């Protein structure tokens, strides 16, 4: 098998253009899948030596996060919106977080990936590069289904951008699983909030593990916008959460339980983002 470690984006894209490649970032998901399937990849393109792919930088458009930034780095970061570092902290174990990367979590496109709902709530933009050129895709339209994205075989996620607007305001994330640590979300939710004098100027919320892709909670957002954020409003908003999600029953939770969980989690994240005493 071929294992290449390009140190420039150009070299990586050029190798991808010749075909037969599996892009390797942290490898924590890929190693499990490849071992279970017994498939041997023709070529691994390990992208983690491309220096611009690691770390975070504030630019004109907003905060750029390199796709090979580890989940542990995100979890420890005070530069990124709180919901994203909380989402990162919820993933796996210390060992997994040290190896796994944010780009890997995104491109793996598991409906329960804990950085996905924060990315959607923050309207993150993903820059995709292939031998044919470059395009930017919104987080919300990037995911097509479980493990399915708009990425072409020879296309690489090269940058994650959180717009300047979303570096203001407050945000929160919460997930629940069957135990406290090292667990996959039964439901997760992220909310980003801009309050002006106690009134919701703008809010964006997203849920994970309640549909084949992370979902924006548009009806809930519409209800909350322009309202004073008190206990009554928060309680009333929960009726809209039900309309925004489409959970199913599976090995991790039943549909009915996920509906209840989504309401409960949304209640908590909204209060947390608003800085109200909570849970």
């Amino acid at each position, binding site marked *: *098998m*071929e*294992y290449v*470690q390009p140190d420039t984006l150009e070299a990586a894209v050029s190798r991808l253009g010749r075909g037969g490649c599996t892009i*390797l970032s942290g*490898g*924590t998901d890929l*190693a*499990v899948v*490849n*071992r279970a399937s017994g498939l*041997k*990849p023709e070529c*691994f393109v*390990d992208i*983690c030596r491309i220096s611009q792919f690691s770390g975070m930088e504030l630019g004109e458009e907003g905060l750029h996060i390199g796709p090979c930034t580890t989940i*542990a780095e995100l979890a420890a970061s005070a530069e990124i919106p709180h919901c994203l570092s909380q989402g990162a902290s919820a993933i*796996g*174990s*210390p*060992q*997994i977080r*040290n*190896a796994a990367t944010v780009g890997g979590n995104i491109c793996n496109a598991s409906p329960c990936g804990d950085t996905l709902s924060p990315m959607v709530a923050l309207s993150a933009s993903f820059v995709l590069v292939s031998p044919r050129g470059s395009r930017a895709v919104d987080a919300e339209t990037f995911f097509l289904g479980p493990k399915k994205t708009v990425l072409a075989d020879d296309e690489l996620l090269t940058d994650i951008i959180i717009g300047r607007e979303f570096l203001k305001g407050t945000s929160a994330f919460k997930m629940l699983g069957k135990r406290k*640590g*090292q667990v996959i979300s039964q439901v997760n939710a992220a909310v980003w909030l801009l309050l002006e004098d106690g009134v919701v100027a703008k809010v964006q919320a997203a849920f994970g593990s309640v549909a084949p892709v992370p979902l924006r909670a548009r009806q809930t957002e519409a209800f909350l916008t322009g309202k004073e954020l008190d206990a009554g409003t928060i309680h009333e908003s929960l009726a809209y959460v039900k309309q925004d999600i489409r959970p199913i029953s599976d090995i991790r939770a039943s549909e009915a339980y996920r509906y209840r969980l989504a309401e409960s989690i949304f209640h908590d994240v909204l209060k947390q983002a608003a800085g109200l005493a909570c849970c």
Partner: protein
Amino acid sequence: MVIHFTCNGKPVTVDVDGDMRVLDVLRDVLDLTGTKEGCGEGECGACTIILNGKTVNSCLLYAGKLQGAVVETIEGLSGDSAGLHPIQESFLEEGAVQCGFCTPGMVLSTKALLDRHPDPSIKEIETALSGNFCRCTGYGKIMKAVVSSAEKLRDSREDGHQSGTGLGVKRG
């Protein structure tokens, strides 16, 4: 592919497929069988090693990732001395070892924690060990062993510092 890396302080070169698991490189190529395979899918932490100062699951790590890296395994813990590392001593003293299969991973997660935080809180210890499963001890004695090894290491650092400055009263 030819891979050069540092293993337990010594330069090592192996010629293996880039998609070989680091766990297999250590156990089957380098004969370092202290690193254990438990679940083989990143849940249990028995295969924990320290890669460039951070704990990772060697069962999920491809050999290509070792190029130029610095690896510590349980075999390297006591350095060139014949004795045990203070963390290993504490695990024995506190009875934190039963079947022993999780122990190398537990000890390495403890070392990575104490290298960063010499005086960790109980919560920090719990988080640091949350990726290491033990099915024998119930964790109580492991927690005690981590606390006691942190004390030992702090004492020895203090001694080292004091002997260096010529002040020298041992704490405790």
